[in-house]
């Protein structure tokens, strides 16, 4: 049985702003939401779960990951309870819940801890630079190797176990029993969504945003591939250099637009920014820009005299790779895709149970 926890609202406060107690369950948000489906009711049910502190159902639900924050619900809310931001808040909370190290929780809830962690990473990089006598070539070689090692170790030590934890909370613990084939076929959707985010298109407001996000993801992934596997900073190939320039520019231009939007606060999606949101886009912007400039300096052959630029790039990159990717907002890339996978399996099971008359699906 689900025990209520009236203090849960307080626990959720560091993760976002919301007047969730204002909600009187008219259901407007659920009615306007283009993602509402039989059996998956949100955001109203999410708000109710938060009001009552039903932690078990919050942990087992992937609903927050199925929301793309078009903001229709918040706009139609007669009580200004801000359901859209609630879904965002729950996503932040769930990121910390899935993280087995608990480090994510510290970074999400404490700004001082966040600053200390970022400073420590910066000092380490400068320290490494010192041990290499600030020699351009050896530092750049280290940087190249670091990228590969960081990606692999973060993936194996942090991300993989966290995904398994997500599956544990939402499928295994819930005793969802679906045929093996559904688990396999579901992966198709997972990959498709991971690289296209096509579900976002259901939110009509978000068409332009989807396109921007889509080329940003594409740019970011190609930039990653170009620097790590094609050794962009070391390559002689004109094609690779050119490709790198394009994707680098895409990364910092789009993120720049996103930053401007968050400053202006005009749309629902950019109204409320948690420190984790700022870190994510600002660092992505800095990474794209610094990578772009490093390559410019290489091509102008002045990087030797401007080692600071590469060190700066490396610091941004390291902070990104060891803090934001494993413990920060970057993880939404994985969780959203897996949520679609999990939701599909759950829905199949639910529909089957309904057809057999075991459960009734309430809409």
């Amino acid at each position: 049985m689900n025990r209520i926890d009236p203090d849960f609202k307080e626990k959720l406060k560091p993760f976002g702003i919301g007047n969730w107690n204002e909600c009187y369950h008219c259901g407007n948000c659920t009615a306007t939401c283009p993602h509402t489906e039989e059996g998956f009711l949100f955001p109203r049910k999410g708000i109710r779960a938060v009001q009552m502190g039903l932690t078990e159902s919050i942990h087992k639900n992937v609903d927050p990951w199925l929301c793309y924050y078009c903001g229709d619900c918040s706009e139609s809310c007669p009580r200004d309870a801000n359901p859209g931001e609630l879904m965002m808040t729950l996503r932040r909370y769930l990121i910390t819940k899935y993280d087995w190290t608990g480090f994510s929780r510290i970074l999400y809830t404490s700004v001082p801890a966040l600053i200390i962690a970022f400073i420590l990473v910066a000092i380490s990089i400068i320290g490494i630079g010192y041990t290499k006598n600030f020699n351009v070539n050896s530092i750049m070689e280290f940087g190249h190797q670091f990228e590969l090692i960081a990606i692999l170790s973060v993936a194996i030590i942090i991300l993989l176990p966290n995904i398994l934890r997500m599956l544990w909370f939402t499928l295994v613990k819930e005793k969802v029993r679906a045929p093996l084939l559904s688990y396999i076929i579901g992966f198709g959707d997972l990959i498709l969504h991971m690289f296209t985010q096509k579900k976002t298109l259901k939110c009509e407001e978000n068409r332009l945003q989807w396109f921007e996000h889509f080329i940003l993801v594409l740019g970011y992934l190609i930039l990653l591939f170009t620097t790590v596997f094609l050794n962009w900073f070391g390559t002689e190939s004109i094609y690779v250099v050119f490709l790198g320039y394009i994707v680098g520019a895409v990364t910092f231009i789009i993120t720049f637009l996103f930053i401007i939007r968050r400053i202006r606060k005009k749309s629902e999606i950019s109204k409320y920014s948690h420190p984790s949101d700022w870190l994510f886009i600002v660092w992505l912007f800095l990474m794209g820009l610094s990578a772009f400039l490093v390559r410019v300096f290489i091509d102008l052959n002045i990087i030797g005299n401007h080692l600071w630029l590469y060190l700066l790039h490396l610091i941004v990159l390291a902070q990104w790779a060891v803090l934001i990717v494993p413990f920060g907002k970057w993880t939404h890339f994985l969780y959203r895709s897996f949520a679609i996978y999990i939701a599909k399996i759950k829905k199949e099971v639910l529909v089957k149970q309904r057809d057999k008359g075991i459960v009734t699906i309430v809409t």
Partner: protein
Amino acid sequence: MEELRIGVYICWCGSNIAKMIDVERIAKEAQKLPHVVMARDYKYMCSDPGQETLIGDIKEYQLNRVVVAACSPRIHEPTFRKALEQAGLNPYLFQMANIREQDSWVHIDSEYATFKALSLIKAAVNRVQHHKPLEKRFVEVNSATLIIGGGISGISAALEIANAGKQVFLVEKSDAMGGVTAKLDLTFPFLESAFQMLKPRIKQVQAHKLIDVFLNTTFDEITGYVGNFTSKIRQNGIEKEIQFGNIIVATGLKPFDPSSISEYNYGKLPDVVTSLEIEEMLMHGEVITSKKKEPENIAIIHCVGSRNSKYHPYCSRTCCSTALKYANQLRSILPNSNIYELYADMRSFGKGCEEFYADTSRRKILFLMFDQENNLPKISKAPENDNAEMIITMHEKLSGENIEIPADLVILMTGMEAQQDAKEIARLTGVSLCGNDFYIEKHPKLDPVATTTDGVYIVGSCQSPKDIPESITQAKAAAARVLASIAVGNMEVEVTTAHINEEVCCGCQTCIMVCPYTAIHFDEERKVSVVNEALCKGCGTCGSTCPTGAIESRHFTDKQILSQIEGLLKTEKEPI
């Protein structure tokens, strides 16, 4: 005997009647009936020109009987009677044929509807020939008033009447005044002290020269009729007689006993308390559990005994706002506690109450919704290792989840029921009871304080669950009605009463048993039944039961009714 001159008037009622019934044809047919001097159809008989036509005709054609075929007599019989009076004709020389509710509104075949209308008119014409003039009667009104019940309603009515300079007898069965209000700490929604509000009013009542308070007092009998009642009351074993002209019944309510609801374990779990029990704790300023600890988790359960077909189907109306009041008070006394309101529907209506709900909901109170008809929450003792004393399990409707609530103190918002002696008081005063034993008012909308017995008024929660302002409003309304009747000094009583022919009466007393108004008594000396015409409503029940035919209901004599039936059957079987 004078020559019969009957006027027949057929109303169109706009198109209500005319669209289904051929009124012009009927008027022509009616003209041919015996003794009918004048037959007309008119667009709106009840309108001023309609009535003027009627009055003019009576004078011009010396009509001495009138039939109006229109709507229900419940609506316009008084209108046309008044018109007859204005024309100098006794108002009882009139008969109405209902061709709207009983004809045009309920039929779809115009031919048959017209045929039926004519039949109804023939019946009325036949009947009205046997009508006799009846004279209005009045009775004197005793200016003293009996008020039964010394709660907030009774006190308010007593003060209102006594302050107007009239005598009041206030009879209370318990040993103190104040009723349930005296057991309350604060009132909703403004959190004022009930005691501070009540105490000065009780003092005023006690000190008032014109109010005689009888505590610990019961009734042996109440006899008489409007304006002239007599009662034998018994105080501490001593019988006393009082006389008065009006009665205000303000017997109040009884709190529902929740021990019958097995889910709540009231009486078995020491920390499950009723609303009146928590009021007492709040009055003493100390809310603690049976283990003398401050409760960490407090659950307030709404609709206890209300809105559930197993207990009471009705809403007790005050519990929601009272529950909000507890939440507020407890939040102030125990700022760190968790407070849960388990409600079915929040009904915090009334001035200031919705705002009160909104304010309360911002004070860290968790509202949880349950199904009060099919799925009540269950309270059980918590296992030893649990932090809380009790666990409440329930299906929460807004989330659709089965949940578990920890609780150290549970407050049951017990509803209101009718007093145990409601039936007894009803019998004494001649008031009717509804299915839930609350008293029935004369009209649910137009006359909510009077009863079908003239001179008897009902106020406060004995009529239906009420809060304090509603009870006081009703009390003062009843007081105004009583004072109005005293001011007039006499009262018109029903003239269409029953009359017993003492020579035919065999003294079987069947009529006494069936009379719903206790208007007939038996004269032991002459061995005959006697009708108290001030109490009789002319319902005719006695007349139809009387085995010897000794009872005649005025205006509903056998002759009148039989001739009406004859008239109805006179018409040809087929449509005209």
